[in-house]
């Protein structure tokens, strides 16, 4: 039976701004509240529950209240109204490397950061080797962190931060740390926490990560909950909203978009057929709409594995195709006659460029799905490579 790990009820956070600091003093002395203050509702009556072992993703635009919510839950900020009930210990990864001192070595910064997380010396001594090896900074650990590159700095900070063992973990957009290799490790670590049945609150702008990791998603807009529930549904609503807003905002006059598929929701590029017998042709049909204004376009298509590895990408520009006109509507096809992809799930991204191939009018990332269930090729990895053995 799932039990509530976090119960948030009517949570409201109001920040007050004063035009001048003296106004705060006058209010304090005269006991006349509301004389000068300007209230700002960072969160407005937010109510939701998080269940044990659940990963809840939090999405929303900048300033929607995501970080405020996470700070309230990790209790670094006190609510104005409303309550948060929690069972268990909380650890928060809100900002990385806070409290690190550039003059100290990586090792001594680990000690400091770990004691901020509440570890005693003995526990840190036990964990320090794991932390160092996770950060992959063995060669640099006894040098001052001011000599580190910014990536190394963040790796060290992240490694300390994830060495915790809380019941509830609050993570604010810190997965985008370091290079691809380290990002993967961070992601694996998150999935590890998930497997250990930790309750996780996870805020990210990477919808892809949210979709892959989270059990439920909460969408915040201007301090209020717009939707909460199944990741696919909520993310779709959110991306629809985002696109609508962007198209309204930037190009009201140029109605250029890659049309939505009518039978696969929010998919802009889709697969017409994948023949699984002899010929494994993949055809992507893209519909482009434009008002009759004489503009010319280039189109790019990329295929990504579901872990975001770019398998192949090309464009009409790269292939030397002349930029094309679109008057009204146009269907464009790209034929991958014999794709050498190995089995797995792949996604298709399409990008609509201007005639120089630089300015992006519209893009749809990783939407159309290709599933290659079984293929004649043996071997592992991304692609089949023509080969022979000599034994």
């Amino acid at each position: 039976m799932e039990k509530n790990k976090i119960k948030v009820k009517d949570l409201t956070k109001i920040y007050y701004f004063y035009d001048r600091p003296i106004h705060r003093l006058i209010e304090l002395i005269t006991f006349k509240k509301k004389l000068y203050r300007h209230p700002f509702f960072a969160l407005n009556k937010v109510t939701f529950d998080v269940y044990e072992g659940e990963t809840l993703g939090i999405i929303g635009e900048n300033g929607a209240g995501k970080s405020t919510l996470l700070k309230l839950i990790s209790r670094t900020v006190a609510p104005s109204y409303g309550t948060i009930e929690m069972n268990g210990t909380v650890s928060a990864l809100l900002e990385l490397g806070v409290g690190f001192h550039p003059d100290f070595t990586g090792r001594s910064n680990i000690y400091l950061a770990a004691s901020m997380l509440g570890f005693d010396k003995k526990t840190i001594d036990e964990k320090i080797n794991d932390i160092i090896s996770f950060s992959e900074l063995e060669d640099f650990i006894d040098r001052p962190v001011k000599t580190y590159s910014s990536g190394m700095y963040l790796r060290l900070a992240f490694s300390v931060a994830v060495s915790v063992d809380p019941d509830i973990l609050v993570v604010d957009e810190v997965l985008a740390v370091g290079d691809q290799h380290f990002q993967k490790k961070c992601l694996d670590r998150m999935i590890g926490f998930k497997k250990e049945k930790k309750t996780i609150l996870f805020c990210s702008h990477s919808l892809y990560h949210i979709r892959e990791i989270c059990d439920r998603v909460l969408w915040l807009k201007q301090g209020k909950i717009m939707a909460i529930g199944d990741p696919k549904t909520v993310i779709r609503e959110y991306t629809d909203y985002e696109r609508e807003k962007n198209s309204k905002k930037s190009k009201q006059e140029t109605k250029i978009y890659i049309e939505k598929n009518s039978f696969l929701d929010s998919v802009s590029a889709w697969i017409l057929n994948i023949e699984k017998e002899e010929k494994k042709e993949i055809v992507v049909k893209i519909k482009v709409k434009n008002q009759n204004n004489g503009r010319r376009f280039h189109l790019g298509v990329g295929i990504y594995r579901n872990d975001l590895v770019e398998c192949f990408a090309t464009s009409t520009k790269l292939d030397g195709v002349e930029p094309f006109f679109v008057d009204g509507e146009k269907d464009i096809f790209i034929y991958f006659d014999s794709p050498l992809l190995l089995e797995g799930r792949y996604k298709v991204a399409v990008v609509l460029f201007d005639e120089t191939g630089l300015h992006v009018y519209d893009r749809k990332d990783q939407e159309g799905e290709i599933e290659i269930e079984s293929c004649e090729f043996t071997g592992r990895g991304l692609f089949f490579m023509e080969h022979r053995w000599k034994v």
Partner: protein
Amino acid sequence: MSSIRTLFSHRNLLFTLVKRDIALRYTGSAIGFVWTVINPIFLLIIYSVLFTSIIRVKLGEVPYNFVEFLFCGFWPWIAFQEAIIRSTNSIVENGNLIKSVIFPSEILTPSLVLSSFFQQFIGFLLFIAVLAFMGRIPNLLALLLLPIPMFLQFILTMGLGWILSGINAFFRDTFQLINAAIIFWFFVTPIVYPEYLVPEHFRIFITINPITHMVELYRSIILEGKLNINWGTIYFSSISIFFLILGDFVFKKLKVKFADVI
């Protein structure tokens, strides 16, 4: 006394912060922690010359000379002054810690107070070594009583530090004000002059100043080898305990709003 409980539960963090702060004083400098005592010693030399050769201060009937008198009061004052000034700014300075880490903000002030004791400790050690070298070996048993004034100094400084750092988070003017007030405070403490030289109608400032009784306590232990328990000692102890309790209370009230204002 929730802030004090936090100190105990986070003592590892407290000691790490103290160690870091002490280490910061000498990382990157060639002669290391010697710098922590060079500035005060420099001031001490100036005061010694000023008040023994130019303005001749008479101490009255006491078994020690002016330089000894000065040194004994100066080290605790320097520690107190430094701890107060640095504590006042501590919440503002560590805003990022308070906002983005689950961090017990009440620990900042005591960590600075303890770190300031390091300087006082080194100063006392030097002073006692010099005394011994001059053939004035202090009463070693009496030195064992030093933790008593040090403890009172600790709780007084911490209580005051909590109050000032909390207020400073809301009104940055506090820090400027304290910088000015501390100069006044130095001169109403009998450090460079003995109390009896102060005219009757000014003496009230000296008497109500708890730091007066604090330096007297240090002097009686180190220079006279005994613990003078008089009404001043009792006053100092009560004030210290009062500020500890008040500081704890005020800080607890203010700290929930820190993240909103810094």
